[in-house]
């Protein structure tokens, strides 16, 4: 008993230097990225990592030194993330996402997109019919902040002016306006996605409600024979913005559908699968909101002619249609 030459002690003494070396590399890679390591160190990394793993495996069966086991477990886990962690090029993944990941996921979720679009349209039609039948509905449906003074009591001239004001705004005001619109709308879009977890009911309500507002607004202008001007004013950015709203709603519905109808998989894994796809859609929609913000804040204010507004709107819509139908087809990827 006197001789305290434990096998586990010898084992540790022989390998400790390699573990320390790995720990040093991992610590540096964790704070400075893998780029902090020299080529030689990068070559050493996988070897040292495998060494640590096999040491852990041996230690589990021969050593009862808990400090050693804890250390090796933590070291192996940390090294794993350095060796196998996601390290795709950021710019490349953004490009891949826009060229393939986003439109592909939208195509695969066409059912949800359709339902979301229907909700928005139904809300719009209801809002239009209600307000056309009885202008009082306008006050019920329209939040005061959005109406900005436009109501059935406004004169036709006031309403027309609202569509064409801002043409003489300073550049910086337009940028501010764009920035505000983007952050506001993208926030709502992300919210609509997150609400999907509550079985999608709040998402549907949000879509219907936005449709109602839009419908009420359209009815107000239709009553004064300003429909053509209104849609020019609305669609120049609205094609992009409403599409993005629909996509966010669709993403929320996708989550809801995964909870309600898990299909062949169990609920949890199905939800995780659907959630990732839906997150992709929302991310793309945030980019669309950014574009819509620019179109609304700057484009619409600078373009005061209804015909050109329509031309721009149609061009943008055609672009999105082509993008979602065609982009990234023919690539096989999960």
């Amino acid at each position, binding site marked *: *008993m*006197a001789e*305290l030459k*434990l096998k*586990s002690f010898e084992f*540790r003494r022989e390998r400790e230097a390699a*573990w*320390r070396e790995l*720990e040093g590399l991992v610590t540096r890679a*964790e704070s400075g990225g893998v780029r902090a390591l020299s080529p030689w160190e990068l070559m050493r990394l996988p070897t040292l990592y495998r060494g640590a793993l096999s040491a852990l495996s041996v230690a589990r069966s*021969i*050593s*009862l*030194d*808990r*400090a*050693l086991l804890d*250390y090796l*477990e*933590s070291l192996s*886990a*940390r090294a794993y*993330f*350095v060796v*196998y*962690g*996601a390290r795709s090029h950021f710019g490349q*993944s953004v490009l891949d996402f826009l060229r393939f990941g986003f439109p592909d996921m939208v195509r695969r979720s066409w059912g949800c997109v359709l339902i979301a679009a229907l909700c928005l349209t139904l809300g719009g039609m209801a809002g239009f019919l209600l307000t056309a039948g009885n202008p009082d509905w306008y006050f019920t449906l329209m939040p005061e902040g959005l109406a900005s003074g436009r109501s059935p009591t406004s004169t036709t001239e006031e309403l027309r002016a609202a569509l064409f004001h801002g043409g003489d705004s*300073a*550049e*910086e005001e337009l*940028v*501010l306006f*764009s*920035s*505000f619109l*983007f*952050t506001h709308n*993208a*926030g709502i879009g*992300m*919210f609509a*996605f*997150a*609400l999907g*977890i*509550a079985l999608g009911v709040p998402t549907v309500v949000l879509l219907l409600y936005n449709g109602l507002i839009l419908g009420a607004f359209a009815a107000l202008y239709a009553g004064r024979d300003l429909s053509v001007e209104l849609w020019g004013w609305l669609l120049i950015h609205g094609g992009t913005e409403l599409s993005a709203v629909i996509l966010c709603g669709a993403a929320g519905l996708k*989550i809801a559908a995964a909870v309600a109808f898990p299909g062949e998989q169990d609920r949890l*894994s199905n*939800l*995780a*699968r*659907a*959630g*990732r796809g*839906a*997150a*992709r859609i*929302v*991310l793309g929609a945030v980019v669309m909101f950014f574009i819509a913000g620019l179109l609304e804040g700057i484009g619409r204010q600078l373009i005061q002619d209804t015909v050109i507004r329509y031309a721009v709107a149609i061009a943008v819509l055609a672009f999105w249609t082509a993008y979602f139908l065609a982009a990234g087809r023919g690539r096989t990827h999960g």
Partner: protein
Amino acid sequence: MVELAERGERAGAVLIDLLFILIILIVIWLAVFGATAAREGGGFGWILAFVLLVSFLVRSFYFVVFELRWQGTTPGKRLLGLRVIDRAGGPLQAQSVFARNLMREVELFLPIQLLLAGSGATGVDALIQLLMLVWVGVFVLMPFFNRDRLRAGDLVGGTWVVSAPKAKLLPDLAGDNNRAVQAAGVAPASIEFTEEQLAIYGIYELHTLEEVLRRDDVNAAAAWSEVASRIQQKIAWQPPPALAPPEPKPFLEAFYAALRGHLERRMLFGVRRRDKHDRPENDTTSGQAKNDTA
């Protein structure tokens, strides 16, 4: 083997991150507006637009960017040794990170907004706020209602949060033992144990002893002497007649080394004794020790 993170740790990490977000936002606002005020020029719209945009990006993508770039950690998570990993065991995907963090709109930002907005409400408004808060509470408290402590974002992203603290390699007690015992002036050979004495405890007790030995707080010495006397009693150990009774710490270190050697040797023969109550048929209780030698 990784362990699930405690709910308290996760809440702490979120609070730290929120604090960081708040600080970043305040610094941006102060810096930008301080610079504008000093310059007294135009261009206020540009600056406001910029601040608005940056604030939105910080608030919405703080978690996403950190979890992507730092392999599933954020500053708050790092401080508390937490990490997000894929529940299926694969690499953490960017879309999982997005999904789990977009959910914070409902789980984190909505309740904060409700709390801030609801403080002054009265009458029906207050009631609606309260109902909303209860409804949102279902999502906020979700980690309490499942075994894996998943929040809604973890469900949607297919992730979970584990505790992965950085462990330091502590000195091997059995290895340094020789030195410690020699330093105390007692030859290692003087503290000896019989097979019967070593057969009393199991791995659990060994690890507890390791923990006790690694203590370095003010009460450590008292704990050592108490544990030492308890062990001496339990295993009926007597100091060799020629020597004065050893100090508690050298005794414990010697016992730790001897016990670990004993248990590790047994382990090599395929007997893993979990704790002192674990007595499989062929294990060495004092009576069966003879069978082993026979």
